[in-house]
């Protein structure tokens, strides 16, 4: 024990441990940094995005739920409040308007803020509390349509209430077109007085909860079984479709990055430990001639191992904590929200990762040391002995798998990555060997530095192949992460383009179309073409009455029903972000009445191409043939339709029209005169929502970029470790060449070429591996549209050659400048 510690300290002092220790510390450090930072960022993101539902959890129901279920939240230390929403006519002295009324309890909103103004469409400021009992706040566009102003009173049911403020933005307004009616909010205690809610009224009760995530989860587990079937309990990811998808994809990306970080760390440790074991093989043989038994050797290296592990994991975790704090500090001005304090979990995760990495990657090579044959001291021809073995690889694989699983808590993702990785390693390994072998033919004709380089690679075929594999793997992981990141970012950016319409006008009367367009044109606002819009429902499917069909969608509550009344439209142009999945979009020459059906709607109701549908619109029947099935990007904040008719089909019906346009901050004031002039028109403002989503996406993007940088760093470390690991062998070769009279220039060039060839091969393999992995990941995990990246095949080898020769030459520069003798002595 004491001797082992002494040897550990002596090894450390002699510089033997530097690389292994550095690899370990950086591995633990990266994993800790990543998990810590991601943990904080995720907490912040959740907090920020919770504003989309004004709470952390919401129970929504069409009836009030039992008070006991609500008071149970108090036991878990959660805050709670409630809202009640219904549609009602609101009356001013002159006019009436259907409004979406929301009555809120004190404490609303639990997350996010209400933004109010003193004038309609005026400058906003956050409100500290919601409306007081006995007053209402109204959305800007209600003022022109009711022809009233702040301070005046409106009638809501049986109550007359003064308008205290203009409501610009409520956090949980959402972007759906189901809440087209303008908003009025009031205090919950006034609802009784309005006498609007009667048995049978359509009312939505929402109960809002917030608190610490662990408490929320415990509470959720406790109440979920007791909730009535028609209530819904959800968090922000399910509650806010616009960002839920981006959030979960970002989470998966960060997870993936973390996983790759773990793998890279493992590879770095394995390489360093292998080198250490290799160098120590002779030491062990000497120790054995001096009387050390194999058990003693195990004991010595176990103590060294544990000592190393303790030092490395503790300082790695400390380093991670520091780096993470530094990064958070640097990023602070960029982050719109304050990062919550880190939790203890990532630190435990970092420490465990370090220990497990060490156990599975470093221990096996160290334990093979006991097998070092003492005859080695005399018979140097046993030099080929390789300290790594199948057991070691098995250990490493097992450890990696366990870590990945534990880290991701996602068996599918882990299996996909692990098996993919394994296949990649085997195939790439064989290819690497093939490449090294085939290099000979090329090498023979070329100049002498080139020949030396190739000869160097050939002489150590297996090592060269392994090295190409290690480089290739590291490069591949980096490229993979980069590609997935690029796809994610471009998806997010395309989701809401900068000039996407942020206002929607509906209920435009046919004879007002021209006037409205002229009004907006005069203000230099670009307007999209008008769609007709009319409500109607399907009555017959292939000559069978809907009422006689068993409703297939009956069991799935969320599936769109065939028989519901829906918004219908007709257009010649396929709307943006819609894709034809089967059939064909309307041909301009077609004489037939056609309808295009949304894919989910078609699937859940068993509709197919060629089906004949009969609609009832305004009391009149309309027959149409299903000629295409379309997918719709529901989260693009554009008007989307389940059913679209071929153009002209709605001509004979008294439809209204809708359109959309983009207003910047300055143009916002146009809304007031516009609505005063065309009071029947409804304008939906989604600019605030788009802004809110952009903020979240910007943060998520930042998180993703940060992850990429961290992984790049640990990738570079792997490259460095593997170059270091091969350095001894290369240096011997260099000394021999130098002693034989080769010029420094020649040695340098041939070494650079050797690295470049290694790197180019590795880059080629990396491109292949990355292409395949990205294909799998984007399809299986990220639901992204995969597109091949041909440039990768050029970039990979160039990047590999450049990167590895630069790192390699930097790592060997110091040694190359020394005399052969001192190099020889250093190697002794």
């Amino acid at each position, binding site marked *: 024990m004491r001797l082992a510690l002494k040897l550990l300290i002596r090894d450390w002092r*002699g510089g033997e441990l530097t690389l292994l220790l550095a690899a370990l510390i950086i591995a633990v450090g990266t994993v800790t940094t990543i998990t810590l930072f991601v943990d904080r960022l995720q907490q912040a993101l959740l907090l920020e995005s919770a504003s989309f539902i004004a709470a952390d959890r919401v129970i929504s129901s069409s009836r009030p739920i039992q008070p006991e279920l609500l008071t149970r939240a108090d036991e878990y230390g959660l805050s709670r409040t409630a809202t009640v929403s219904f549609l009602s006519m609101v009356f001013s002295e002159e006019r009436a308007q259907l409004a979406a009324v929301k009555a809120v309890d004190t404490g609303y909103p639990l997350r996010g803020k209400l933004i109010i103004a003193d004038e309609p469409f005026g400058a906003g400021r956050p409100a500290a509390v919601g409306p007081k009992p006995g007053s209402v706040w109204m959305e800007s566009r209600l003022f022109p349509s009711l022809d009233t102003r702040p301070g005046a009173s409106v009638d809501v049911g049986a109550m007359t209430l003064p308008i205290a403020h203009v409501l610009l933005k409520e956090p949980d307004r959402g972007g759906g077109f189901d809440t087209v009616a303008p908003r009025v909010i009031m205090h919950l205690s006034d609802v009784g007085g309005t006498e609007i809610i009667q048995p049978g009224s359509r009312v939505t009760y929402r109960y809002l909860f917030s608190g610490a995530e662990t408490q929320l989860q415990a509470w959720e587990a406790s109440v979920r079984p007791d909730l009535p079937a028609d209530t819904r309990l959800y968090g922000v990811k399910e509650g806010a479709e616009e960002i839920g998808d981006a959030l979960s994809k970002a989470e998966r990306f960060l997870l993936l990055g973390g996983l790759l970080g773990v793998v890279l760390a493992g590879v770095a440790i394995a390489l360093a430990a292998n080198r250490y074991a290799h160098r120590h093989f002779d030491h062990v043989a000497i120790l054995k001639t001096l*009387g050390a038994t*194999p058990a*003693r050797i195990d004991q010595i290296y176990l103590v060294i191992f544990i000592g190393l592990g303790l030092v490395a994991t503790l300082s790695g975790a400390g380093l991670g904590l520091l780096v993470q704090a530094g990064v958070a500090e640097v990023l602070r001005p960029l982050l719109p929200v304050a990062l919550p304090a880190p939790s203890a979990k990532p630190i435990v995760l970092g420490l465990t990762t370090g220990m497990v990495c060490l156990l599975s990657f470093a221990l096996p090579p160290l334990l093979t040391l006991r097998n070092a044959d003492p005859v080695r*001291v005399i*018979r140097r021809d046993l030099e080929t002995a390789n300290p790594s073995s199948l057991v070691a690889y098995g250990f490493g694989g097992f450890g990696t798998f366990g870590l990945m699983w534990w880290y991701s808590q996602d068996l599918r993702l882990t299996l996909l990555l692990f098996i993919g990785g394994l296949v990649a390693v085997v195939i790439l390994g064989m290819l690497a060997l093939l490449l090294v072998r085939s290099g000979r033919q090329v090498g023979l004709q070329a100049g002498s530095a080139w020949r030396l380089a190739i000869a160097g690679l050939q002489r150590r075929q297996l090592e060269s192949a392994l090295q190409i594999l290690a480089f290739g793997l590291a490069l591949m992981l980096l490229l993979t992460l980069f590609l997935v990141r690029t796809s994610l970012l471009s998806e997010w950016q395309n989701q809401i383009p900068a000039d996407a319409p942020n206002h929607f006008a509906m209920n435009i009367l046919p004879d007002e179309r021209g006037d409205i367009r002229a009004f907006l044109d005069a203000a230099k606002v670009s307007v999209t073409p008008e769609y007709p819009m009319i409500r109607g429902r399907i009555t017959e499917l292939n000559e069978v009455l809907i009422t006689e069909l068993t409703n297939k969608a009956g069991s799935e509550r969320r599936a769109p029903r065939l028989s519901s009344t829906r918004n219908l439209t007709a257009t010649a142009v396929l709307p943006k972000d819609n894709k034809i999945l089967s059939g064909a979009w309307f041909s301009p020459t077609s004489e037939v009445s056609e309808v295009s059906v949304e894919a989910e709607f078609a699937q859940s109701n068993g509709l197919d191409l060629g089906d004949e549908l009969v609609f009832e619109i305004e009391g009149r029947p309309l027959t149409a043939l299903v000629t295409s099935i379309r997918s719709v990007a529901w989260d693009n904040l554009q008007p989307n339709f389940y059913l679209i008719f071929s153009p002209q089909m709605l001509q004979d019906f008294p439809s209204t029209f809708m359109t959309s346009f983009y207003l910047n901050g300055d143009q916002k004031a146009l809304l007031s005169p516009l609505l005063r002039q065309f009071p029947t028109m409804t304008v939906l403002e989604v600019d605030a929502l788009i802004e809110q989503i952009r903020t979240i996406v910007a943060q998520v993007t930042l998180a993703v970029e940060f992850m990429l940088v961290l992984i790049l760093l640990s990738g570079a470390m792997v490259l460095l470790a593997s170059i270091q690991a091969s350095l001894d062998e290369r240096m011997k070769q260099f000394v021999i060449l130098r002693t034989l009279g080769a010029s420094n220039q020649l040695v340098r060039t041939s070494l650079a070429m050797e690295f470049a060839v290694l790197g180019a091969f590795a880059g080629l393999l990396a491109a292949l591996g990355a292409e395949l992995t990205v294909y799998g990941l984007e399809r299986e995990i990220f639901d992204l549209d995969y597109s091949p990246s041909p440039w990768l095949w050029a970039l990979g080898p160039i990047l590999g050659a450049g990167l590895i020769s630069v790192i390699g030459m930097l790592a060997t520069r110091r040694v190359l400048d020394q005399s052969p003798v001192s190099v020889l002595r250093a190697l002794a």
Partner: protein
Amino acid sequence: MIKTTDICKIVDTSEGSLVILEGITLEINQGQSVAIVGASGSGKTTLLSLLAGLDSPTQGTIILGGDQNITLMSEAQRAKLRGAMVGFVFQTFQLLSSLTALENVMLPGELRGDAGAGDNATRLLERVGLGHRLTHYPRQLSGGEQQRVAIARAFASNPKILFADEPTGNLDAKTGSKIIDLLFDLNADFGTTLVLVTHDARLAGRCERSILIEAGQLVTEAGDVSRAIA
């Protein structure tokens, strides 16, 4: 002290099995100095590693110290035996590169758990004339100096038998003869049995006995060194 009966060493190579040593029977007494000589490739190193228990013979028995049959021992037992009674000096010195001269010499004592390993090592290093180089690493020492450290280390465990494989093979003649002097001085002081492999006639001549190996077989065992070398 060392007694072998009919030892053979056969190794499997890609071209079939190769007989390296055959029917070696010999006896070496306590305190004797013996030189193993012979042409290159004749099997001297192989024989030495068998005698020292670094390797096992294919056939035959080797008994050290009167009753220790090393051919029946496990590697762990042989290691213990080596620690207790055997010392080594190698042609390529075999110092641990990450340890200083002093630490290298301390190692056998430390492995046995001796409390006075440090003092003993310092004394031995002073004895070989390196008292002023205690904290130097092997790479900072010349070949002759490294071999002196190796000799100090070999005597640190107070061995009964010292094995040396061409201890001067990597050194020039002058340094070599200094090393030989040192080896024999210490050998006399410690009363050690000395078995060394050498190509050097002078070195062989200083031994009491020479054993000539030819193509894996013991040809003569001559008290007369000049005949063996001739």
